[in-house]
């Protein structure tokens, strides 16, 4: 296979923390960093270089998890982008972001929207960049991570889909339908909530103040990034709440309500 001669866009420096001589620690006082307990640390060294330090004993899956998610997310955050923990699709060229706590069904809802023919934008991490005052959603890798029961509800056989990492229950599903290749304007942000007493999914616009809170609490890896980044996160969420309509999407935690929620989102966006 021919090697690319083009300079790398991003450099990832990796080392195991029990071998400092090979890779001396970066200046601890410069650059954003985050700690993922049980896995390691990520430290941004410059606009295009990130240091990944895996806790011993070094394990390739841990390194892969740190680089694919936290390292890239932290680097983009350091470069001024807003990083939200969610999934995103493009509905007729309009970017739709779905936020929510782990297990609420962000990826499943995005997959249901893709089944309706809408384009995949990203899964797990939504990168939003302000371009001339407008919020733009950047495309991510064409993969989604889904739990086996979500896969089954969407008509797939989990046994035939490989795990995200060895031993992981979640499955890494290649996106086979339309995929966004360029940034799309952010049109709507939905924050998922679970309410067992609701018979059907409900969408409700929230005030700007509530929108800021929804964005702050769903900021990617907020709990790991540390207080030094709080001001940047807060300011970016306020800016985003000023530009984009944010709603709560209340649903029951019944896997069958996903299709109803997908239709609700589709109608809300296209109306």
């Amino acid at each position, binding site marked *: 296979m021919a090697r690319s001669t083009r300079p790398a866009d991003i450099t990832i420096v990796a080392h195991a923390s029990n071998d400092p001589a090979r890779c001396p620690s970066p200046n601890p006082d410069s650059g954003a960093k985050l700690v993922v307990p049980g896995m390691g640390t990520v430290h941004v060294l410059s606009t295009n270089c990130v240091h990944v330090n895996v806790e011993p004993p070094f394990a390739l899956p841990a390194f892969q998890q740190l680089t694919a998610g936290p390292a890239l997310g932290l680097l983009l955050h350091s470069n001024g982008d807003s990083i939200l923990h969610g999934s995103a699709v493009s509905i007729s060229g309009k970017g739709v972001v779905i936020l929510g706590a782990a297990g609420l069904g962000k990826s499943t809802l995005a997959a249901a929207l893709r089944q309706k023919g809408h384009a995949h934008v990203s899964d797990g991490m939504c990168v939003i960049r302000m371009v001339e005052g407008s919020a733009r959603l950047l495309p991510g890798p064409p993969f989604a991570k889904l739990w086996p029961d979500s896969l089954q509800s969407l008509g797939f056989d989990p046994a035939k889909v490989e795990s995200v990492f060895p031993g992981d229950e979640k499955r890494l599903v290649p996106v086979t339908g339309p995929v966004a290749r360029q940034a799309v304007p952010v049109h709507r942000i939905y924050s998922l909530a679970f309410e067992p007493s609701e018979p059907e999914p409900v969408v409700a616009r929230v*005030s*700007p*103040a*509530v929108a*800021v*809170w929804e964005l*702050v*609490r769903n900021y990617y890896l907020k709990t790991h990034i540390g*207080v030094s980044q*709080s*001001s940047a996160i*807060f*300011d970016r969420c*306020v800016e985003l*709440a*000023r530009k984009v309509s944010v709603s709560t999407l209340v649903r029951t935690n019944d896997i069958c309500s996903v299709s109803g929620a997908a239709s609700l989102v589709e109608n809300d966006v296209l109306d």
Partner: protein
Amino acid sequence: MKLRISEGVLLQFIGDEAVVLHVATGTYFAVNQTGALAWRSLVQGGSLEDAVQEILQVYEVDEASLREDLEAFANDLVEKGLAEEIPI
């Protein structure tokens, strides 16, 4: 009474409201239109009396009640560690 925002407290005005994040505790507050007006006046160097007069220009309310409410609001901010009283 004059106030300043405490260290470690982030404040932004959005629409008619104000949003506050207390970084150390992660506590988030949203303040309605009246509160936002009062806070804006107070943190921009105004006194409690300045805030009263500013709000009276926007709302038709009883001045004495407003003054009492704002004083309670200001004391609440100080008690929660979101603001500090400074000498006039």
